[in-house]
């Protein structure tokens, strides 16, 4: 079959690989009908997430038709079922899964030994990601083996298109969880850094959850125009002061809730000197991540406010003003998304026409064009916001 394969830093190729095989009675195999390139795929593309190996298949946003089911998954799945695959692999039975904390499932990471050394404890297995999270082959391929498939799936009805439901795999629940973690009140201003796909979903989620005003911060005009369409007040940080404008919009008090939908690769610009320093330290391996957004959020957030972090961080960050955060009494909530915690509810909202996540798709191409689309998406060329691949 064809698959997009990681061969090293910025080196993705559309390779011919052997087909996946059922390994465990709980496995299933799907024929992928749609998959997408995620912003966090770019962290792998740039080799900022450790423990990728040449030959790893990319992709953690995928859906398709079940073509083979292991004996222990047959009670939940049948050949021909149409499913979206959540990017977090879950057993559905461990203590964390029972609490709905699916992204820290205790059983599905097959490289638990590595994760325990690096993170202290294991987290869930993830598709198309580092070997710290199991090194499971990803869904940017014609076929995908779904481990623990009896629990790791979202069945979707035939009357919804792939484009409407594909993002239940990651970015829609990720944006929703980011907003839910803010515990939004009707009087709240929610400021969202980053208008990529997760930022766009977080904006819509904050609107649905009833924020008084939602503010979107980015420097790419077309992404800001999409944020504005979703109900956000745009701030272009290359044209105006983020802190000044947020204080203007909140009577000088700052936003109550702040969402970091940027993560470890904050934009580098001479007007923000800390971003230059972070870039240099990251290149010299003196720091893993570029945490400008975290610093700015801590500075501008209203005292006793909440900071929600769906953006991915990989390791060590420098110059985080913990004294400022502590004295302001800020609450931090973060983590990989507990996808299945939210998807029944979100699928209902799509079915009821409350939201249609397909608005974010700007490019649809075949798998062969995937390597080039990684570059286009990374460089934000051709007004690219979200790429869907059709294997």
């Amino acid at each position, binding site marked *: 079959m064809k698959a997009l394969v990681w061969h090293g830093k910025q080196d993705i190729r559309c390779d*011919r690989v052997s087909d996946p095989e059922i390994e465990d009675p709980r496995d299933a195999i799907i024929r992928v009908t749609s998959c997408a390139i995620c912003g966090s795929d770019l962290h792998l593309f740039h080799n900022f997430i450790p423990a990728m190996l040449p030959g790893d298949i990319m992709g953690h946003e995928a859906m398709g038709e079940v073509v083979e089911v292991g004996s222990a998954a047959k009670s939940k799945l049948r050949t021909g079922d149409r499913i979206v695959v959540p990017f977090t692999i879950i057993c559905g039975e461990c203590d964390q899964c029972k609490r709905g904390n699916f992204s820290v499932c205790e059983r599905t990471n097959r490289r638990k030994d590595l994760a325990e050394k690096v993170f202290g404890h294991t987290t869930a297995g993830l598709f198309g990601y580092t070997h710290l999270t199991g090194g499971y082959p990803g869904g940017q391929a014609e076929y995908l083996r779904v481990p623990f498939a009896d629990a790791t799936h979202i069945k979707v009805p035939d009357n919804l298109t792939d484009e409407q439901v594909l993002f239940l795999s990651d970015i829609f629940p990720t944006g929703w969880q980011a907003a839910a973690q803010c515990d939004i009140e009707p009087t709240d201003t929610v400021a969202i850094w980053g208008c990529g796909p997760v930022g766009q979903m977080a904006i819509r989620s904050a609107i*649905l*959850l009833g924020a008084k005003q939602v503010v979107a911060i980015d420097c790419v005009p077309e992404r800001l125009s999409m944020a504005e369409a979703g109900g956000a007040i745009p701030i272009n940080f290359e044209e105006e002061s983020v802190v000044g404008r947020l204080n203007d919009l909140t009577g000088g008090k700052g936003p109550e809730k702040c969402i970091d939908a940027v993560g470890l690769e904050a934009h580098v610009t001479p007007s923000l000197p800390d971003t230059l320093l972070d870039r240099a330290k990251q290149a010299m391996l003196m720091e893993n991540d570029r945490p400008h957004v975290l610093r700015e959020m801590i500075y501008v957030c209203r005292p006793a406010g909440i900071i929600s972090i769906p953006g991915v961080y990989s390791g060590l960050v420098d110059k985080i003003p913990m004294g400022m955060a502590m004295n302001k009494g800020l609450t931090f909530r973060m983590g990989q998304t507990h996808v299945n915690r939210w998807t029944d509810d979100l699928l209902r909202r799509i079915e009821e026409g409350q939201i249609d996540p397909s608005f974010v798709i700007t490019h649809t191409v075949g798998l062969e064009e995937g390597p080039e689309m990684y570059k286009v998406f990374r460089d934000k060329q051709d007004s690219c916001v979200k790429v869907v691949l059709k294997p």
Partner: protein
Amino acid sequence: MNMLAKAADIARSPGDPKVQSTGPSSLGAADRMARGLGWFSIGLGAAELLAANRVARGLGLEGYEWLIRGYGLREVASGVACLSANPLPGVTSRVAGDGLDILTLLPALRHDNPKRGNAELALLAVAGVTLLDVLCQQGLTRRHARPSGPRRDYRDRSGFPKGLAAARGAVRQAGEARPALPGIA
């Protein structure tokens, strides 16, 4: 067949797909060239740092040893930047560094310099590398820059089929409880 991918198969389980043949890479020619220049820069920088005395003697530039060590540091820093996710600033710094190198070598072309021949060769080499650096810089700019001009406007993409006004606060208006937060409390 990529040998690194083959070697990494040891970390995969029997049912995982394995690479059989590889397709074209997302890396362009300019990206590969930047990497080559990055490693060259680090190598040259290390030589200048570790053997500044020999370099100075070889070019008839005695007394310039600390300057050569400084240039070595510059080369290493440029090289690291060339190997990063965005190599353009690194390659641009190399172009500027090439100019400095040429200016520094010019005094070594004086007629009374017994190592004038070496200096001429060095100048020729720097000129050649400068050409490569400029070509790489132009290639990277062409491949990765966001073209100026009209961009798409997505102001018609609300994502709310019933309209933005109906979406505002829809969860609360429907009498739904706020989503329960994850955690172990």
